[in-house]
């Protein structure tokens, strides 16, 4: 709880420090704020408390997810050291918005009431709309922001509609009371049309937020247009918060009506895996590839929602973090490469293994992790997700589909590795400029990915 208050306060401080227009103050300050929040957040461990008339509950689930989201932000922000947009004016607002959006993200993992969920999503989203358009002179950035805003607000509206219908059927916004009320309807509310319609509409709303297919259409365009640092944030923290909120909602409020919404969710998962993986294969731009890959990872993450066992929460936590570290490394290096070589295509990475061995190594580890190859965290992420699901014998076919598509994933992730190590350096390719701080961050991120790939129990055991 203190972390929410602190983050809001720190955000306001950032706004005022922003008058100095000095990144050399703002960046360390923001990192310090985040480190403080990370530490304070951990104090709530094993100390479940409810706030605001039971609107928010800070339990271990909330603390763990807040922890990895704050940590991810901590790992992303150093990449703003170089530049965010072509001319970094008004950067104070950007650093403030990141902190504000984290407030929303934390609410999304600690809500106990549908209204808090809605408010959390809105706080997060509105900050993201602005960040998407923060490269003000770029048409693509403006297009991304407009697209994201129009689609986003439409789907938030849709989701609110669903919440209202569930309220209409149960008479409460509190998620545990909704569960009780649904129980009383018989068959977990699966027979109540208004209730089920509400549940399905909420599923659609959240699916949009985590860019699951078929509500993914905005993803490639918005990811492409948004300044890359914020794309990294969008595809890691926003997704983690969305999936954690989704799981909590389905587990706490709607688990009894599982047969009613399961087919819809299965369809969303299959489509996400299919569209994400197949779409990524045909991309020429690495950024769009990562956008499609993020759609497919939404599919893998959602697979945990089909089984509510003690593996599921660990699986989401582990997978989200594994995916986040890998994505941050990939987007981070892409951010530098794209700015300095003027292209986001695979060719821009040609010969990176020669010119910048460290970056190439970090991207290789990231790609292996995203592809789910052992020695990296991504392998155990996939492993835990499949483990969570396999106790549900009806879903064996889904695992088979996921496995086949995971092999497709290897194909496009390794195109980057091949470009870096096997294609010759183009003549005009000078080494990518970077700072020692960013290099250290890349080492830390790669080390984290490998550490969790060797000793997964460090993270999988916490929930």
């Amino acid at each position: 709880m203190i972390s929410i208050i602190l983050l809001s306060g720190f955000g306001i401080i950032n706004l005022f420090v922003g008058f100095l227009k000095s990144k050399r103050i703002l960046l360390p300050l923001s990192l310090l704020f985040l480190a403080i929040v990370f530490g304070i957040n951990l104090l709530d461990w094993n100390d479940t408390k409810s706030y605001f008339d039971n609107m928010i509950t800070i339990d271990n689930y909330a603390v763990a997810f807040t922890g990895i989201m704050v940590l991810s932000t901590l790992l992303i922000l150093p990449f703003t050291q170089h530049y965010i947009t072509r001319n970094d004016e008004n950067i104070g607002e950007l650093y403030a918005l990141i902190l504000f959006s984290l407030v929303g993200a934390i609410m999304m993992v600690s809500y106990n009431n549908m209204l808090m969920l809605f408010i959390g999503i809105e706080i997060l989203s509105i900050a993201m709309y602005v960040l998407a358009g923060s490269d003000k002179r770029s048409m693509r950035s403006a297009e991304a922001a407009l697209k994201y805003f129009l689609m986003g607000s439409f789907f938030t509206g849709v989701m609110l509609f669903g919440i209202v219908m569930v309220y209409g059927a149960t008479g409460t916004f509190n998620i545990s009371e909704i569960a009780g009320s649904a129980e009383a309807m018989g068959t977990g509310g699966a027979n109540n049309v208004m209730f089920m319609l509400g549940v399905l509409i909420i599923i659609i709303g959240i699916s949009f937020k985590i860019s699951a297919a078929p509500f993914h259409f905005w993803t490639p365009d918005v990811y492409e247009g948004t300044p890359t640092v914020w794309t990294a944030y969008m595809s890691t923290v926003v997704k983690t918060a969305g999936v954690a909120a989704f799981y909590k909602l389905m587990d706490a409020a709607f688990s009894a009506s599982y047969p009613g919404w399961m087919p819809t969710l299965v369809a969303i998962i299959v489509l996400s895996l299919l569209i994400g993986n197949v779409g990524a294969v045909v991309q020429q731009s690495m950024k769009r590839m990562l956008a499609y890959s993020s759609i497919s990872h939404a599919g893998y993450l959602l697979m945990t929602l089909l089984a509510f066992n003690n593996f599921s929460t660990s699986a989401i936590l582990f997978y989200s973090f594994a995916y986040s570290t890998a994505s941050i490394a990939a987007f981070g290096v892409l951010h530098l490469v794209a700015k300095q070589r003027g292209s986001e295509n695979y060719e821009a990475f040609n010969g990176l293994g020669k010119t910048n061995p460290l970056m190439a190594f970090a991207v290789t580890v990231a790609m292996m992790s995203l592809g789910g190859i052992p020695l990296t965290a991504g392998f155990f992420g996939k492993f835990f997700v499949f483990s969570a699901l396999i106790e549900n014998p009806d879903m064996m076919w889904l695992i088979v589909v996921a496995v086949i598509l995971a092999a497709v994933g290897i194909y496009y992730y390794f195109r980057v590795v091949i470009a870096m190590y096997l294609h010759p350096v183009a003549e005009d390719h000078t080494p990518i400029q970077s700072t020692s701080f960013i290099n250290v961050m890349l080492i830390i991120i790669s080390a984290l990915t490998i550490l969790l790939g060797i000793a997964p129990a460090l993270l999988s055991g916490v929930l």
Partner: protein
Amino acid sequence: MITALLLFWPALAALLVLLIKGEGAKKVAFIATLVEFAIALFATVNFVPDATTQFALDIPWVERAGIGFSIGMDGISLLMVLLTAFLVPLIVLSSFKHDYKNPHVFYALVLFMQTGLTGVFVAMDAFLFYFFWEVALIPIYFIAAIWGGARRIPVTFKFFVYTIFGSLFMLAAFVYLYFQTAGTELAAHSSNVNAFYQLTLDSATQSWIFWFLFLAFAIKMPVFPFHTWQPDTYTESPTQATMLLAGIMLKMGIYGVLRWLLPVVPLGVSEWADTVLVLSIIGIIYGSIIAIRQHDLKRLIAYSSIAHVGLISAGIFTLNEQGLQGGVIQMLSHGINVVGLFFIIDIIFRRTNTREIASLGGITQTTPALSIMFLILLMGSVALPLTNGFIGEFLLLSSVFQYNYYFGAVAGLTIILAAVYMLRMFQGVMFGTKSEATEGFADLTFHEKAVLIPLVIMVFWIGLFPNTFLSISEPAVGQLLSIINR
């Protein structure tokens, strides 16, 4: 502890080698692999030939989930580890005359690969096995893709995606099996090999699990029709990578069948054994016939390898003791012969710049040492009595005959066909008149002899005293059979 040492020493050495820029990397890598071989010999001497898993180490890895870092060696594992430890120094030595760019990276990857290979052979936990299975793939992919021939990028990429595709199915099967196991008080399930052996699933489940696992192993071996990645990859890879692939990595697939397929899903195996035998025998004939038609030496050996592996896989799926023992001994023999043959091809290629049989010839005139060694290794491959190939192929063929008379008759053609393509190759390359390319062909240098002589000694050792090795694996094979027939 010895097992852990065997496992981690190459990885440590790899890190060391990475720090040494330039030519020194070769020598350090060679010494490191010799040390590894010494450790493996020490383990062999201390090995008690019974059915137990020895030098075992079992520490929890993901404790809550019952996944352990369990390693250890029974007779089969030991022989495989010994083969790896024996071949890798020779493979490193065989590269001494090559000037690879960035030698420190090259040798570090070779050593790192050795850790992966050893890990596959000593893992006694399903997920650990899978882990090392993939760990072994990554370095070989980079070795082949960075230092390979002109078409290396698409070819190695196909190899990589193909094998990953297969192994993901293995992972899915392991995860399923894992959830069927009984656990301990600490964890609800266990992925230990013995927990898998105690499973009793119904035959329909075993059938599909069989195919999930078989797909992974069959792609790695490779068994017809999953072999399409193999000839190209062998041809495009640098010689050392081809040696690693054919000499050792291929054995991962066969070892996987022995350890993780036959005893785990015996009902599935008996259901599908006929199919696998037919596929394997098609592979034997198909590989041999295509080998006869090859003009490129490396491709010829690549296809001959498909034929040889077909016989091993046919033999072990007969599920009788001769077949399994034959499979184990033939894995050793094939590893030794194929590494030797690929090295000889490399020697010829380096001196003449061609691998085309048609443009070679007359080499025997100036090279007594090379000719004799080539002939011995070739005879081992053709399975002439007194050589190592004879012992393995005899046991394997006799097991296939016991299983089904007709299968045996067709599989037996392998010996005739092998003689055809091997002798045709020898004739074309070594005899006849000198061609432009082979003019002034020099005999073996000291380094080359140092690689080939140990291999030739092993050809005769296994051929004359097979019991040295058969006695090591016999109790373990017996135990496997008792688990399969329980």
